[in-house]
């Protein structure tokens, strides 16, 4: 089945099984590897991305539902490397990643969190992101999200 959508600003039409999870479409058909496979059951958040501004776990999102929509993966979160999204800048400022595998999903969730809760408390962060990190970067993720909020505020004020 032919399915058309925008991804990171580019219009794409692909011909795949309509039930193929967006995860595998993004990774294997479009060669965007930042979106990761972690559990395949919507439990770990490693495959998080945005579809029409909503947060989705792409292993649990058949590509057919993306028809006509706009997808953003981590590769498209920032305009360019010299103008980083506050979340990515904050992630660098706080030296967050260890192995780095779960980080794209966390950053996509964090970007959505800041849209909904521009000045999150530690509790807001803890309650609203349930992604899994095994290296133990959680303390830095919390700091980085707060830092991203500051960067965001500085940008918009």
């Amino acid at each position, binding site marked *: 089945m032919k399915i058309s959508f925008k991804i990171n600003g580019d219009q794409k039409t692909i011909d795949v099984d309509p039930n193929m999870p967006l995860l595998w479409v993004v990774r294997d058909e479009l060669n965007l590897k930042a979106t990761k496979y972690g559990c*395949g059951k919507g439990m770990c958040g490693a495959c998080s991305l945005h579809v029409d501004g909503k947060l989705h776990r792409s292993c649990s999102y058949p590509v057919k*539902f993306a028809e006509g929509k706009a997808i953003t993966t981590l590769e498209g979160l920032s305009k360019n490397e010299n103008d980083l999204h506050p979340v990515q800048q904050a992630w660098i400022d706080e030296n967050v990643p260890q192995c780095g595998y779960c980080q794209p999903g966390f950053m996509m969730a964090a970007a959505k969190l800041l849209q909904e809760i521009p000045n999150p408390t530690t509790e807001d962060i803890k309650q609203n992101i349930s992604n899994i990190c095994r290296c133990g970067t959680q303390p830095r993720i919390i700091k980085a999200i707060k830092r991203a909020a500051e960067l965001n505020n500085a940008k918009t004020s």
Partner: protein
Amino acid sequence: MINLNKVKLFIFVFFAVALYSFSSLEYKDNDSKADKSLEAFQTVLEVLRSPRCMNCHPSNDVPKVGDDRHAHLFGVVRGADDHAGPVQMCSTCHQDENNEYSLVPGAPHWGLAPKSMGWEGLTDAELGAVLLDTTMNGNRSPEDLVKHMSEDALVLWAWEPGGERSTPPVPLNEFKAALRTWLDNGAKVPE
């Protein structure tokens, strides 16, 4: 010679008896309607109390999962508009249909019933009252209730939940009939 007074008396008695009989007949008919309604309500309750319905009608803010009705994992809670969030919504993982790859269940507008329609821990009478109270049931008339409970895509999912999930103990058509019977016969609830 006919004793008029006797006739009058007879007529009076006849009518009195007839009236009495008639009124008692009517009373008896009402009685059986109530029984019917109450009986049908028990059938309705059996369905409403099945995990498929109850899991999304919690009285607290925690959605339940599975036939053992355990709390939804990963700290998922009701959220401001019953669809979790504001960051991770139900739709973050649940789409309009069951996902054959991730095995995450799905149906249109997947989410919780409003808290006013929380059914956990209610007695039969309380649950019935909640169903009928338009201030609590989403301002639904009896007709609206039948429509919601027998036509809404998310409700219908309960009878075709996929995977190894159990279905409600009563088939959909029997449930719908019971619902009608309950409502049409006075929507009686046990005291």
